[in-house]
């Protein structure tokens, strides 16, 4: 029997994987991809909970999360392109000119 716990554990594992990516990788595009992984983990949790309580709210909220993720990916990638034009690198450690 597949229970709610199965899906929640899977969601937690995916979320932790995404977090590792955001903190450890030194490539802006991969960091954005890791953020998408985290958002997906959250979506999975929402849908699983929605199914458990028998309401369609989980899917509606997932719909909004996907839309926000799309908007954020678009703006984030535009920023990446603008940054790349400046310094020719995708390593976030190279953008340190605002440090004291």
């Amino acid at each position, binding site marked *: 029997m597949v229970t709610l716990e199965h899906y929640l554990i899977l*969601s937690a594992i995916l979320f932790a*994987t995404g977090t590792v990516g955001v903190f450890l*990788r030194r490539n802006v595009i991969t960091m954005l991809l890791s953020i998408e*992984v985290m958002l997906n983990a959250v979506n999975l949790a929402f849908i699983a909970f929605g199914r458990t309580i*028998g309401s*369609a709210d989980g899917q509606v909220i997932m719909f909004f999360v996907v839309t926000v993720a799309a*908007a954020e990916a678009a703006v984030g990638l535009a920023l990446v*392109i603008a940054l790349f034009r400046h310094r020719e690198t995708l*390593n976030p450690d190279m953008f340190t000119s605002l440090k004291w």
Partner: protein
Amino acid sequence: MGTELLLFYLFGGVAVTASLLVVLGRNPMHSVLLLIVSFAALAALYITLDSPFAAVIQIIIYAGAIMVLFLFVVMLLNAHKEDEYVSGGAQTMKKPLYAGALLAVVLAAELVWALLRTDRATDGLLTGGAAPDAVAIGDVRVLGQLLFTDYAFAFEVTSILIIVAMVGAVVLAKREL
């Protein structure tokens, strides 16, 4: 219900493996493609959760549009070469990785503990059981009604958000205004 469990482990395994390879992979092009595989596995999981609409939305928007955007950017910036895991050269690469992996395991354990402590009225049998009405949540009509009545404000705000994001992306990526 052996098939349900088998399907869950199959798609869950694919999703976890693909996500791990996305995060640890060296080539951003391969990372993008593996993330698409992960999205497909998650869409399959949504179908086992009686939410076909959510699965299709996932494929259309995430795998079909957002990932194409990522792919274009990777191709445009020619970012398919390898990169270092952590800046500082090969010597400092291993230790932050191990520490990060350890902390990730700790985070996962914490999340699992927090999520499993939820107080539920039903007993948690999720798929194939007599519990919630599968038709009630799988029907797109119900979804549409919820979206336009209870969540109408969020819906309108989301449309403004999309316009703002569109304008912002165009302005940010232009060479000169």
